[in-house]
């Protein structure tokens, strides 16, 4: 496949070689993610998983979704959505963690009978 395929509407067309390489990288990273669970990393396990997942997602976005070759504004939209999710998660996490000591376990007045 020629690396210089182009299209009159969209300009740059993803070279097949690139697509195959990204596919391979994603498969490898999947295997890495699964293997990482066999290592005993209690505290940072979630962050390792998150990190690898983010790398995979970034590869999909940049290459499969063509984000690398498109207008930067599209990437800004994508990133902004993620930032707002993080904002929501962050503040909700902060708050719920902070009020856990106030909770009375098993206390659900009026909820048992439905």
């Amino acid at each position, binding site marked *: 496949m020629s690396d210089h395929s182009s299209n009159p509407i969209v300009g740059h067309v993803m070279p097949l070689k690139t697509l195959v390489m990204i596919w391979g990288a994603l498969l490898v990273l999947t295997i890495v993610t699964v293997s990482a669970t066999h290592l005993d990393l209690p505290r940072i396990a979630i962050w390792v998983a998150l990190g690898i997942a983010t790398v995979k997602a970034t590869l999909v976005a940049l290459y499969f979704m063509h984000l690398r070759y498109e207008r930067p*504004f599209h990437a800004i939209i994508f990133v902004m*959505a993620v930032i*707002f999710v993080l904002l*929501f998660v962050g503040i909700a996490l*902060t*708050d719920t963690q902070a*009020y856990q000591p*106030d909770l009375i376990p098993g*206390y659900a007045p009026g909820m*048992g009978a439905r």
Partner: protein
Amino acid sequence: MSTAENYLTHSSGIRSWLLTRDHKRIGILYLISIMSSFFLGGISALLIRTELLTPNHALMSPEAYNKMFTLHGAVMIFLFVIPGVPATLGNFFLPIMLGAKDVAFPRLNLASWYLYVFGALFALASIVMGGVDTGWTFYTPYSVITNTSVVALTAGAFILGFSSILTGINFVVTIHKLRPDWMTWFKMPLFLWSLYATAIIQILATPVLGITLLLLILERTLGIGIFNPALGGDPVLYQHFFWFYSHPAVYIMILPAMGIMSELVSTFSHRTIFGYRFIAYSSIAIAVISFLVWGHHMFVSGQSNLADLIFSFLTFLVAIPSGIKVFNWLATMYKGSITLEAPMLYALSFLFLFGIGGLTGLFLGALSTDVHLHDTYFVVAHFHYVMFGGTVIAFLGGLHYWWPKMFGRMYSEKWARIAAVVIFIGFNLTFFAQFIMGSKGMPRRYASYPARFQPYHDVSTIGSYVLSIGFVIMAVYLIHSLFRGRRAPANPWGGTTLEWKCGSPPPHDNFAETPGPCEPYDFRGIVYDPAIGGYVDTARARS
């Protein structure tokens, strides 16, 4: 003049309306739907206020009362104010103000309207199925266990959310892609800046409402248990979910209204807007900061002290851009040649009423005062001052401002002014009394109350009747104008934005050719021509 072919006469028959792709016709379809919803919400308001004339049973049982205020809230918020300005005036004028033929995705626009209708049908179904009694906020755990038609109403709201999202997408793409080359961002009318900021919120916030309502539906139908404390769930988490959308939603309501204000204040002061860039940036700032303050609805819900502090502080921040806008409008009026036609009367009402509403929001944003005022009539009065005294008043101002353009007819200026004054008086009677009784402890959503609050309730109810008289007057003269009104010139008020350069009503394609460069809010050369009863632009050569 307007016997020329226009978008109304372009094609006829019900199918040409129900299958239209013309943004102007879609705007009119929305206008009819939204005014119907306003009517339904208004009737429920009158029933509520009539019930509250006395602490005893008047019209309805307490259970029915709960259903009535839920109906009023849900209909007014989801079916009237949130779609409100963007779907009606926004749809109609966004492309015209850009000098474009239509929005970026005309068929999607029509789909948005059908989604609105579909969602409204679900809401009506929930009424037929007996009504919901949870309040429009559907707080768990009660909304999980009540045996009222919650699923129907939340499904309707879910569908309406999609309508909102699609409109937002359409507007963003239209503003990005369909501007003529000479119209840079800072040559756009401020109404479009506000619609853009609104669209950002619609796009980012509404999906979270979607997932919230979906989880609530799953909770009720399948017992999924995420918000149910008996199953290990967290009801405060529901509130986080709900308000993450619903707070930015109130800015969906107010931002387009503020955009209308910029148009009205500059046109009727016949003076260029003061601080264009500040107003434009403040719209974006409001959109962004609005996502940071949702916890101020949850100060007494069980939220942690840390979150209370963070949200209270940020709430004070969000008031700043709104304040900037108000000062800029006042500065626009200063040394302008102010004329007091009906749209300007509404604009002035907005300044006063939104000022009060915004200020009382600060009282509620302060933690210590909110503990006393939360869930009292003070809150009710606050949000009615901003949503009604702000958004609805500005919407009415915009409706009157653009009525001649949309329908090619002038309404009776005398009756319009009378209605505006009646509405202003009725509004203040209705809601100012509520501030006072709220601060004295009258709780909201209560069908009965201690006798000492009765005078306030009676004043408030009488005010609501005065309000409705004002609206009846308005309906009469507006409908009358459609048949007997004087034919409108292209530019009856002396506006400078592009919609005043095409005929009244606009032709099907808006402009024969894309209009040439023009600066919005440049009033030099706009002079009144008595021969046509409107304004003409003597300064620039027309294309």
